[in-house]
């Protein structure tokens, strides 16, 4: 869309279903919707990549699923539970099954706890006895590639970024979740370490049948890691579909522009296509109609007055655009 609509949802088979989600932030200059009518869903065992630039609402969306940010409108269903209506007590139980990994691994770990305590933190809150936690910690550490003998007693400041992210992954897995929401989990890491962490996530996903929401601004990482991809812009959805097909044949001009902004050493000018002009508008005063129209190379009059809805442009591929690309 930058528009709304939920034509791309796949019904009851989904483990997580988000429909017309709205999240509002209140600032000194008034309230604005960081997420303004976003819909997506995940089938069990699927990985959904959510991509977009600053201010598109991708992180807010991830947080809202866990109700870490207040939901202003829409519906969120996880398995049989209505997240919007769930009581704080029920949410606490549900968050055991829906774990989150954050971008900055070091600041998301308590600096005074040892690695061994950190990975079992969730289990401790869930009421697992200390003797059992101590017995299980080495196995989890081994699984995330941190041999217990060397790492169990270390503090977060003694870890590298990649090691800290492994601790965060171990902590999430220790409570055996069904859903893992990863918010830019490798953005702060060097390329060589990034690959290690991505491989680890793939490995654990297969082993534990995880369903993953993978939020990232780096398009290269998302394509092969995800089954489906959701492209967001200024709190709205632009495109949804099979990640490899969307990358090969984007239907939304914004998706096209994003992909053409990925540096490509093969092409003469260093990029595959022309640049998108302009700046990302402020989410405080988004453009009317399609929110992408101010930067869109093919925008028409209609785009300023009518917000596009998600619709199927090819089997399984949906775009919120009045003039989708071929």
């Amino acid at each position, binding site marked *: 869309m930058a528009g709304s609509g939920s034509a791309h949802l796949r019904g009851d088979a989904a483990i997580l279903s988000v429909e017309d989600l709205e999240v509002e932030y209140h600032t000194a200059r008034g309230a604005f919707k960081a997420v303004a009518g976003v819909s997506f869903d995940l089938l069990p065992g699927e990985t959904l990549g959510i991509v977009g*630039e*600053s201010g598109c609402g991708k992180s807010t969306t991830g947080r809202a699923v866990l109700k870490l940010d207040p939901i202003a409108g829409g519906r969120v269903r996880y398995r049989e539970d209505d997240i919007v209506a769930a009581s704080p007590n029920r949410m606490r139980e549900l968050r055991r099954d829906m774990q989150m990994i954050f971008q900055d691994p070091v600041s998301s770990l308590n600096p005074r706890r040892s690695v061994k305590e950190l990975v079992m933190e969730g289990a401790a809150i869930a009421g697992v006895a200390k003797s059992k936690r101590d017995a299980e910690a080495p196995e989890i550490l081994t699984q995330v590639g941190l041999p217990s003998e060397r790492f169990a007693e270390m503090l977060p400041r003694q870890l*590298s970024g*990649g090691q800290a992210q492994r601790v965060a992954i171990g902590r999430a897995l220790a409570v055996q979740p069904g859903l893992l929401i990863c918010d830019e989990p490798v953005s702060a890491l*060097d*390329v*060589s*370490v*990034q*690959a*290690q962490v*991505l*491989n680890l996530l*793939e*490995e654990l996903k297969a082993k534990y049948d995880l369903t993953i929401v993978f939020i990232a*601004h780096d*398009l*290269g*990482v998302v*394509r*092969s*890691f995800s*089954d489906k991809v959701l492209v967001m812009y200024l709190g709205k959805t632009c495109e949804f579909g099979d*990640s*490899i097909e969307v*990358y090969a044949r984007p239907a939304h001009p914004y998706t096209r*522009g*994003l992909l*053409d*902004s*990925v*540096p*490509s*050493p*093969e*092409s003469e*000018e*260093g*990029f595959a296509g022309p*640049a*998108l*002009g302009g*700046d*990302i508008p402020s989410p405080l005063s988004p453009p009317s109609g399609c929110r992408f129209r101010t*930067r869109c190379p093919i925008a028409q009059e209609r785009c300023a007055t009518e917000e596009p809805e998600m619709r199927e442009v090819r089997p399984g591929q949906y775009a919120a655009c009045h003039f989708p690309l071929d």
Partner: protein
Amino acid sequence: MSELLLEVTDLHAYIGSPRGVVKAVDGVSFEVRRGEALGIVGESGSGKSVMARAIMGLMPARSARTGELRFDGKDLLGLSKQDLRQIWGPEIAMVFQDPGRSLNPVVRIERQLTEGMRRHLGVSRSEANSRALDLLKEVGVPDPERRLRAYPHELSGGMRQRVMIAVALSCEPTLLIADEPTTALDVTIQRQVLDLLRRVQRERGMSLMLISHDLHVVAGRTDRTAVMYAGRLAEIGGSHDVFEEPQHRYTSALLGATPSIEHQRHAPLDVISGSLPSPTDPPAGCRFAPRCAAASAACETEQPPMVDVGAGHAAACFHPVNMKEGELVGR
């Protein structure tokens, strides 16, 4: 006038730390030609940023530089602070990663743009003001008349970086060093800024050193690329050659670890196992040997020399990619 603008010969830049001397740059040699764009690629800890600062003479306290730095015939290492002030701006200018922190938050854009010109070029205030306007136009800042009166916080990140580039260009430098200029920016804005750098470099016939952790960013928009690892140069050559036919095992491993557009869904990525060596006590031989799948006994004890494989493409590797097993290059 020599074709070479900057000659770096066996440069060492050491920094004192509580844990010992950090050998951030440890014997690096290369040159920058007039009018060329040279990319410098490396991960954290490779020494790429310290090297840029060593060239500028912006080293922290408790640090030392040795080797040779010749810029346009001048010996940069021998220059006093006073002399360096004459170099910064009209000779070498630098753009940093975080445009928010490089601009003075309480000074309007116009004065930040004209300060250098008034000092170094000796132009009048009105002349400097009109040049400032031209500069903002050149770097593609929309509504430039209004932006001149703005403070940095009134601009977006991408706009601030354009302004930083305009400030760097204001004294017409012969060499522009851009240290991760787009890392803090969104992809579509990164794209705009990279296009801008390449355009002004070509139009002005200026030399550019583009430093990045991302080989993809550098390869497509520079003439030559140097790859750094743990304070040393691993490889240097034509950007296309380095990207298409990497010689050093580190370069090829780095490329393999980046997901490509052909990568199979859910297939494992090639990884570089282990982590960077200690910067205070680096390995005696090749710095990459402890993580290298092709390392032999020689790699652990001897530092491989830079060996030219043709067309100015050189790598410091005993076992370059595509070399038969057991064969040693450079000894």
